[in-house]
């Protein structure tokens, strides 16, 4: 996050060059900006070191576009609509139900077993994962886990870690060459770096074990609040465990299912209880073949 803060400071400094007028900085929290000739003097509060929900959204939108360049969307609109309704249900039971652009859901055309969430509320599940699910509780558990990552801002945290060192070494070089036009390009470059960090975390490196356990714990609370069986997550983790290991996607980026079950204090082989016949019926009506 130091990198983001550095960008904000650099941009403020660049205003001096842009306007040719005096600019006063008062620490990191606020700044007085002399406007360009012909415009009123404006006082802005400078964004603090936390990324805003709006910034998270624009970043997530670009990450979502990158995900689509690797996995095309499923052609089955009915299936995506069903996943979306389960997703919106679990979102309503989360502690972060209202975000800048709202939550969006998409089924991806891929046989790999995977689920992804980009910052800003963009959530994806693959057709392969849908084939593995046996009931609506299983799907709700996966989606609640992804909402958990967004609620805890894990995607943003991955940018913070990777840019702490890089931002410092690049700062002087960037500052010396800064012009007005370059300032937007500079942000776009930072944006590009942040997208790559998030993509690397989502598809290659994975979140930390602690972040996965935290998302699981959040998912448990969400499922209970929403009225789904809290054992749905345990059931899905058991299914993942039963799948042959050594595959890519979710298997390579997540801790072992048995470790996740241990962290939740649930046994391998647990099954969802109290599943309504209506939920079972609508799940079975979906074509996941």
């Amino acid at each position, binding site marked *: 996050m130091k990198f983001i803060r550095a960008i904000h400071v650099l941009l403020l400094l660049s205003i001096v060059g842009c306007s040719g007028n005096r600019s006063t900085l008062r620490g990191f929290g606020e700044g007085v900006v002399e406007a*360009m000739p012909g415009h009123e003097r404006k006082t802005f509060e400078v964004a603090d070191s936390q990324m805003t*929900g709006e910034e998270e959204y624009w970043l997530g939108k670009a990450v979502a576009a990158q995900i689509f360049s690797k996995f095309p969307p499923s052609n089955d609109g009915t299936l995506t609509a069903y996943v979306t309704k389960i997703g919106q249900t679990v979102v309503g039971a989360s502690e972060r139900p209202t975000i800048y652009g709202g939550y969006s859901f998409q089924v991806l055309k891929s046989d790999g077993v995977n689920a992804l969430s980009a910052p800003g509320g963009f959530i994806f599940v693959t057709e392969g994962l849908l084939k593995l699910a046996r009931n609506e509780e299983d799907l709700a558990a996966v989606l609640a886990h992804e909402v958990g990552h967004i609620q805890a801002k894990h995607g943003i945290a991955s940018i913070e870690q990777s840019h702490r060192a890089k931002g410092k070494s690049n700062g002087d070089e960037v500052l010396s060459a800064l012009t007005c036009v370059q300032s937007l390009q500079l942000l776009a470059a930072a944006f590009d770096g942040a997208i790559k960090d998030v993509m690397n975390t989502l598809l290659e490196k994975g979140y930390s074990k602690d972040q996965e356990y935290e998302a699981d714990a959040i998912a448990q609370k969400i499922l209970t609040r929403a009225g789904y069986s809290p054992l749905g997550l345990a059931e899905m983790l058991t299914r993942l465990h039963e799948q042959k290991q050594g595959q890519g996607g979710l298997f390579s980026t997540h801790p072992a299912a048995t470790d996740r079950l241990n962290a939740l204090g649930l046994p391998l082989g647990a099954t969802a209880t109290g599943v309504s016949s209506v939920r079972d019926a609508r799940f079975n009506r979906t074509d996941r073949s």
Partner: protein
Amino acid sequence: MKRKRLLSSHYMRNSICSALLGIFCVSLPSSLFAEDLYVEVQSVKLRSAPKAWSQPTEEVRYGDKLTVLERIEPWLRVRSEKNLEGFIHESAVTVRKPLGTTADVALNKVHAADVVLAGKGFSDQVLAEWERSNPQVKMSLVDDMEKRSKVPLSEVVAFIKKGDLNLGEKE
């Protein structure tokens, strides 16, 4: 007798003054300590009750100022600039006044460069700049995803009810 009446009217005056003072004091917190917050999401509808699936009322948009009337965590009862009241989840608001919006720029209220340079950070302008350098990405697919995901509240509520899930009343 006259003195008694005078005493009595004096006592009544005092009582009325005390009562008025009491009423003033009771109303003090909402008038003096009212807190202003700002909408931090693109748009959201206020709710008629502090529940996720309660009836939506007025729509408020990014940057709108809301006055907090009551806190029922995680919900806030607020009054909008149009003087309408409703509930909003705390995740949708911020204490910090948002920087100039793209709409402000369009209305020439603020200079575009000022907005970009004053620490707004990642924005639609930055995304557009990034898109220019990455013409291979298909942003239309993301737009479609977002559009399809905006399911009417009534449909989600019907889905929850039919599936015997929790609308919030059981909490």
